[in-house]
Structures are given as structure tokens and as C-alpha cells.
């Protein structure tokens, strides 16, 4: 592997780690492990932990994918490996 593609792959993995951390924190973290604690806080009529499990994590997932797609596009162009 030459230097550019090694650097490109490093940048990609760096982004993936960020995405995975957020993915884990909102679902397994806020929605499951810390849900009992978060339920003490309420969001409208929702206990917060319950909200993350039944609503919040899904909203975050959607935003997360579009954010990833944009960042990944930036990385592709930065290393000049994009299509077209």
C-alpha cells in the first residue's frame, strides 16, 4: 500500500471510530445501560431513558449516516480518490 492510500485508510478509520462511538453511546449507552438513571430526567411527558430507547436513538442514527456520508465525501476528495 502506498503512502496516500495508507493515509486515506487511516482517515477513514478515524471517522468510522467517531461514528461507532456515537452509535454506541445513544443506543446501548443512553437507551439501555444508563436508561434507569436517565429516567429521572423528563423530556416533556417522556422519561429520558425511555425516550432514547423508543425515539431518540433513531433520530440520532439518521443524522449520523448523513453526517458520515458528507465527511466521507470530504475525505474522498481530500485524497483525490472520489469517483468521476
Amino acid at each position, binding site marked *: 500500500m502506498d503512502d496516500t492510500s495508507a493515509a486515506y485508510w487511516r482517515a477513514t478509520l478515524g471517522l468510522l471510530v467517531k461514528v461507532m462511538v456515537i452509535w454506541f453511546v445513544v443506543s446501548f449507552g443512553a437507551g*439501555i445501560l444508563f436508561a434507569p438513571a436517565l429516567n429521572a430526567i423528563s423530556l416533556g*411527558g*417522556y422519561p429520558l431513558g*425511555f425516550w432514547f*430507547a423508543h425515539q431518540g436513538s433513531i433520530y440520532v442514527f439518521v443524522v449520523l*449516516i448523513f453526517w458520515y456520508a458528507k465527511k466521507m465525501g470530504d475525505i474522498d476528495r481530500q485524497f483525490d480518490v472520489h*469517483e468521476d
Partner: protein
Amino acid sequence: MDLQTTIYLVVGASFALYIGIAIWARAGSTSEFYVAGGGVPPVMNGMATAADWMSAASFISMAGLIANMGYGGGLFLMGWTGGYVLLACLLAPYLRKFGKFTVPQFIGDRFYSKTASTVAVICLLTASITYIIGQMTGVGVAFSRFLGVSSETGIYVGMGIVFMYAVFGGMKGITYTQVAQYIVLILAYTVPAIFISLQLTGNPLPQLGLGSDMVGSDVSLLTKLDQVVTELGFGKYTTTTAGSTLNMFVYTMSLMIGTAGLPHVIMRFFTVPKVSDARISAGWALVFIAILYTTAPAVAAMAKMNLIRTVNPGIVMQNASPYNPESQIQYEARPDWMKRWEKTGLLKFEDKNGDGRIQYYNDKSKSEEFNAKATEAGWKGNELTVNADIMVLANPEIALLPNWVIALVAAGGLAAALSTAAGLLMAISAAVSHDLIKGVFMPDISEKGELMAGKIAMAVAIVISGWLGLNPPGFAAGTVALAFGIAASSLFPAIMMGIFSKKMNKEGAVAGMLAGLVVTLIYVFAHKGIFFIKGTEFVDLIGGANSFFGITPEAFGAIGALVNFGVAFVVDKVTKEPPEHIQHLVESVRVPRGAKAVDGAHAH
């Protein structure tokens, strides 16, 4: 117009629409049959993926299960959406760059071995057929209500329709039909939810309604629900977890990685024009899925509330005591929707204490206080059995919504079940005809012969799954969860290692897939019967039900995946490295530039 006529009309019109589109977009060559020529734009592909994805399990079954499980049901919501994050970032773009159009093809090429692709076909078939059993259960529920027959007859009718439907179209027909099906099913899901949310909370958005106060009071809907379910001996709605925190954790994980490993979903991302489109497509798919998935918890809670309001009049709105005889409706005075569902055999009443009233409560409650009150009130056990799979379809009837809404929901349920069954059958037919027969046994089979083999494979799959669907291993969503566990434990790790590890070799991948699949199947079959055949359970041999740290068979896929990764890693260390050209192949897959249109059908 009476209800039954309205249902026939609306369902008939929706079917005419799908068939019309299928004829208009009829597939010609093999590659068109499977992948629609690689020219489907991301938003359309996202919508079709959403329809493909949201099956009878999501539409018909899931909210009913959440209604029973409460907070713990969130594992379905997080599990079946979170997988898309994995799919979008870890798999879809790389598989698209790879440029083949089935999962076994990727595994066979990446691990330079026909054994690997054959093992992948076995994993794929096991997961897909289990998945279709769940669909058939759902189809049976939808057709039994739609035609007013028993759920068995419903399954037979469903088998026939699914078969005609899948054999007729092919992927291109399916892609455009699925866009239409998405629109029908999402309207069918959200319209009644909006009505019901307005009725109960005055807020038209179900997502906000679930967090609002009940109409004419300052008590929030969830607080009220917590109160009434507790009064009936059930666990608190907003905190009851699924088994244990550990079980909920691994269950959610299984569904997520299963999502990313399910071949019929992955196949969709082979059909987009570019690698960057594969990333965005997954995002669009999730947008369209999220519309249903954020509505589902509201449907669940509100359906539970409305069911209790029907059976126990007064306890929700007037705070009457549930133990008063007046708070339990008389069987003779039950609403029409109950009579309609009794015909399907999915809703049953048994007057255990002979008072002519319906007592609906949790007779397995562990609360001494509640049990004492129930005994004092003369209750002799729960008398109303409501199959969780009917909750969504019955929901608009329970809320006394107009006939056209009820008809729309029936059409939506059928759309959901048919679209997914069709997508799965495509994956099965591609795996058998292309990867197994053409790839391994008869390399010089003609294109026509290949198509025919694919159609026969579909027919066999429908018969097997319909037969097993008559005695399903669980509710539709539970059975589908088993399928996810199988995909999670077998295919997901192999694909991941194929992309992210240059050094993973064929011995490691094959051993890993087999180990993951076998260990998961043993655990599942021990609970649910060998090949899901009733009476062949061997749960004592593995030390009792849920013997592995209290983990249920539906949740076991994540454990199977760990075994898969572990075995693959060890075997890889003691066998020789993959050849040089494979390592270069992995490097080239990681870079988007140079992606070609999918040509898998003819490249040999």
C-alpha cells in the same frame, strides 16, 4: 358501504397498482431480474429498501410486541434501525465497490474459495427461510382478518399470492413496485396513528403525542399508562426491561448486526450507480424506515391504552377501580371488532369465573398485593387472550376509526408482508441458481435454465416456510428476530473481516462462519425445535431454557458472532496467509475510485 366491502375495494385497488407496475417494468435478462440494471437513484432505492425491509414483523407484529413489553420493546426499535449505521459505514460502500451482486459471490471471491461461497449460501438460506416463516405468520394474520377465515387458511392463501407475486416480477419490477408499496404501507401506518394520537392527546404527531398529556387532564399519557397497567398486575410500561439488561443489550446487538448481515438488504446497495450513492442510499432508507419506527412506540402505547379502555371502561378516563364489576365489560356487550377477530382464532375469551364479564389482567403477577386484590374481586385467571400480532391491524377498529382507515391498514399490512417476502425470495433464488447451481455445480447452465432454477428454488422456499409458518416458533417479530440472529452470527463477521482485514484467509472465514452458525442454531433449535419442528426441542440438554446467562434464543446471534470472530481469528493465525492478489483486491475495495457498474451476472 359496509366494512368488508371497503376492505375488498382498497386491498384490490392496491394490488392492481402493484401488478400494473410489475407488468410495466417486466424484467428481461438475468441481471435485470436481480438488480434492475444498476440504475436506481438513491432516494428511490431508499424508499424501495424501506419497503423491502419493513416486513410483516415491523408493520403487523412489532408494535403489538412493544405494547406487551413496554420499555423493553425498544430493543426492536433500536436494533432494527441501528443496523443501518453499520450498513452505511462498514459494509455498503465497500460491497458496492467490489461490484458483485450477491453476498455469497463476495465471500467466494474475497476468500478465493468455492467452499466459502457454498457455506455462505447455506447461511443465507437458513437465515432467509427463517425470516420468511415469520412473514408467513404475519401474512396468515393479515389474510385471515381480510377474508374472515382462520389463520391457517390465511397462510395457504398468502403462500399462493406470494408465489405468483415473486415469480412474476424480478428485482426491477420489485424496485418500482416496492416504491408504491412503501407509500401504501407508510400511509396505512401513520394515518390511524395520527387519528388515535389526536383522540387521546390532542396532538396530531404521534411522536409528540406519546410524550403529551391525556386529553382533558394534566397527567401524561405514559404516566397514566404506567398506572393502569400496574393496576392490572402488569409491569410498569416505561421501565420493564426485556428479561435482563444483559439480554436486552445482546438482543439489540443481534438485531443490529443481523440487519447489516442480511443478504436481501445488502443486495439493494449493489444496485446504486456509485459508491457514494451506497452511503447516501442507506441514509435515505433509514429516513423512510424511521417514519414508521418512531410512530410504532406511539401505536404500541396507544393501542394498549385503547384496549384497556375497551375492556375496562372507566378506569382510564374516570379513574374507576378496576376491581369493580362495572369496570369489566360484559362479554355479550363486547364491541364488534372483538367478534370479527374471534373468527380468526387470534382473540379468545374464556369465562373462567362464570360472571359473564371479561377480566383482562396479568395472572402471573409477582405482586402479592395485586394477587390478593384479584382473588378478593373473584378473578380466576386472565380471560382474554389477544395475540400480539393482531394489535396493529385491530388498532383502528379498537379506536372506532372510519372504515376506510381500517381498510387502508389491511392493505398496508399485506403490502409489508408481500414486499419483504418477495425480496427474500429474490435473495434465495439468486443464491441457489446463481451461486450454487451456476457457480458450483453446473457452470455452463443457460441463462434460461438459471432463471428456471431460481423460480423452482422460490417455490420450494415458499412451501417449506408456509408449512413451518402454520406452527410458527413465535410471534412474527420474534421469528424474524431469530433470522437476524442467524445472519448476525454467520454472515456479518465474514463480510466484516473480508473488508477490514487484509490477512483473513479462507480457512479462518469458513471455520468462523460454520462455528457461528452451528452454535447459534444449536441454541435456537434447543428452544424452538430442530428446524422449528414442534416436539423436537432439547432444551434440557443445554441446561434448561435461556441457560446461557439468561439470554433468550432470539438474542443469541450476538454471542454466535463473537464465536465466529474468535474461531476465525484463531484458525487464521495457524494457517497460511491469503495470496498476494487477494490482499491487493482488499486494498482496491477500500477506495471508491474506479467502481464499475455491477456485472456479476455475466462475468465468469
